[in-house]
């Protein structure tokens, strides 16, 4: 197992170039420039994500090895504070910034888009979207993201579901009452028997 792990220590993020342009829109909300934060709700909102090769780089042959585009939802720094399980590490095999997969698409020079309904197990946090380009082996070659290099602009806040349901709340109350009621009942019976 150690051998497998050793073979996979991989690409450093700092060695990748940002060659893609990625945008993410929340359906029904307008995109404007500047460090604005938008909110999306799990289960209700869709995200429209578009990616394409930077227009200034077309025709230069940079994308000759590009096979697949992996689009991922990544935690913004504010959501990584005191949360080591979301830590940013330069080695992409250990990096936990972008643990939520959105989709994978085949690379084309014209670019593509995807309409993503936010899954119910996405935690409530502040995010940005990043697309990694990989070759046939799955090794990352380049990337693009919706935010700047400091990860402070164009962030998206996602509000998650609570996971609670009315039926569970009612069941909790019933079981709790039964528990305490059983104890009180037994106590009453015991003390009556004593007399």
């Amino acid at each position, binding site marked *: 197992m*150690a051998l497998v792990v050793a073979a996979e220590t991989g690409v450093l993020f700092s060695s990748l170039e940002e060659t893609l342009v990625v945008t993410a829109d929340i359906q029904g909300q307008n995109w404007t420039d500047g460090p604005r934060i938008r909110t999306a709700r799990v289960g209700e909102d869709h995200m429209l994500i578009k990616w394409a090769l930077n227009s200034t780089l077309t025709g230069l042959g940079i994308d000759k090895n590009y096979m697949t585009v992996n689009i991922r939802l990544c935690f913004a720094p504010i959501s990584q504070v005191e949360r*080591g*399980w979301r830590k940013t590490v330069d080695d992409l095999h250990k990096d936990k910034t972008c643990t939520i997969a959105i989709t994978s698409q085949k690379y084309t020079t014209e670019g593509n888009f995807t309409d993503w309904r936010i899954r119910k197990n996405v935690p409530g946090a502040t995010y940005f979207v990043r697309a990694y380009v990989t070759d046939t082996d799955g090794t990352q070659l380049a990337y693009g993201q919706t935010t700047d290099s400091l990860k402070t602009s164009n962030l998206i806040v996602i509000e998650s579901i609570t*996971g609670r349901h009315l039926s569970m*709340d009612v069941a909790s109350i019933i079981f709790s009452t039964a528990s305490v009621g*059983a*104890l009180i009942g037994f106590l009453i019976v015991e003390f009556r028997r004593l007399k």
Partner: protein
Amino acid sequence: MAPTPPTWRLDNESVGEPGSSLHGVTGHEPTFLPTIDPVHEHDDQPGAPPTDLKGRPFKLPVDSEHKAKTVRIWTIHRPHMLAFHLSWFSFMVCFFSTFAAPPLMPVIRENLNLDKIDIGNAGVASVAGAVVSRVLMGTICDLLGPRFGASSLMLITAPAVFCMSLVTDPTGFVLVRFFIGFCLATFVSCQFWMSSMFNTKVVGIANGTAAGWGNMGGGIVQLVMPGVFHIIRHNIGSNDFTAWRIAFFIPGVIQVFVGIVVLIFGQDLPDGNYSELKRKGDKVNDSFKKVFLYAVTNYRMYIFALTYGYCFGVELTIDNIIAQYFYDRFDLNLTTAGTVAASFGLMNLFSRPLGGVLSDLAAARWGMRGRLWCSWTIQTLGGISCIILGVVGQLGPAIVVLLLFSFFVQAACGTTFGIIPFISRRSLGIISGATGAGGNVGAVVTQAIFFLNSSYPTERGILYMGIMIVCCTLPVCFVYFPQWGSMFCGPSKSVTEADYYKSEWNKDEQSRGLHKASMKFAENAKSERGSQHGSIAAKEGLEDANTKGETAV
């Protein structure tokens, strides 16, 4: 009001002021009892099998108090073996509920937006409540009996378990874990019940096994909760954030069910329940002030409360952090991380009982000095293996080290309660309760210092915890019994067991004969001199305390 001459009931039957008797919490009652005064007026016909108050014969061999003389683990004979199984199972269920959250932490932390500090606070809260509830449980067992003690605690804390499914933020999470944690006091009722049901010769095995199997709950939960979570997710189709909430109904329902079963089928004493039995003979209430005084002025209590904090406290800490540690550091999935974490708690099946057995073996050969060396050695080895665990970075070796570490740490718990009964006879209850509470304090302190902040990763926290275990075990070297010695010094030749235990009673109390039960214990305690003195101890009668000039320290 002139006091009537008291007749002492047998030590482990006296019911006194709050805290004055927590008999059975120890795990090691004296094993050489020359006579056992009958507590109840039994009408045992000579030659006929002993029967309880309702005339039913006992299925196990019993002594004159109707306490069982053997432990037949694979049976449920009433009342003894049924009490044994109800006892360890109720303790196990409480451990299960207290540590039900950690194996699901990777899901819970995302749903409730917890950060490392919140998770650390919740871990501290889960073990902090029992610091107080363990001390109170002794009183409840004295007054109402272990049956009511255990079952009422389980039924009162079960609503907290159900409330976990209502939590939506970090504060709620910390509060709920705090209230659930109170139920860890069933340790006290478990040990108390075993001492009421089992004779001194076997109560050690009964207590050690019941405590060990109860602690296993912390291991079993790491397997069961991820399994239940996956079943709810895949077979019922709930999403993650709902599935973990539904999963919490499992420990809650089991806790209510077992609480009711204990109420219906449990029995406090071999002859019946507290509420059914009439107390026969005079009952002496010891003075709470005196009992408390002799406990807090005995430095050994503080040393063992500290060391128990660094074996049992460490065990609680690991129960809280280990699944998340393996999930994050070694990239295991939830179920696999839970399985690895479970192996830690499951070692309790034999580690803790074995610790008690090792302590007994050491005592048989080297007396109390053997017990002290055994305790120090095993706990220090636990600290060293903890240091190694913090350093190891590969999964396979980490699991091996984890298992070694779990053995040493749990065996150390067993060895500690091999020594506790001998620290004091009069204040045995408070000292035992304080030691148990010290375990929880150790868990609170350790988690607060090493696992709350993010300035260093968890593996470094484990390394530091190992160093702290080694350091906090060193005070065992300073425990000195004048009649038996310490790790590095031999006994004082002029002080005997009788002197030591008599010194807890002043002249007035001695003239009234209140110290007689302690003297009986002192005779039994001669076994702690070791094998070269053991045969002498068996032949000697009670020494006349008045002929001794010195009082023990």
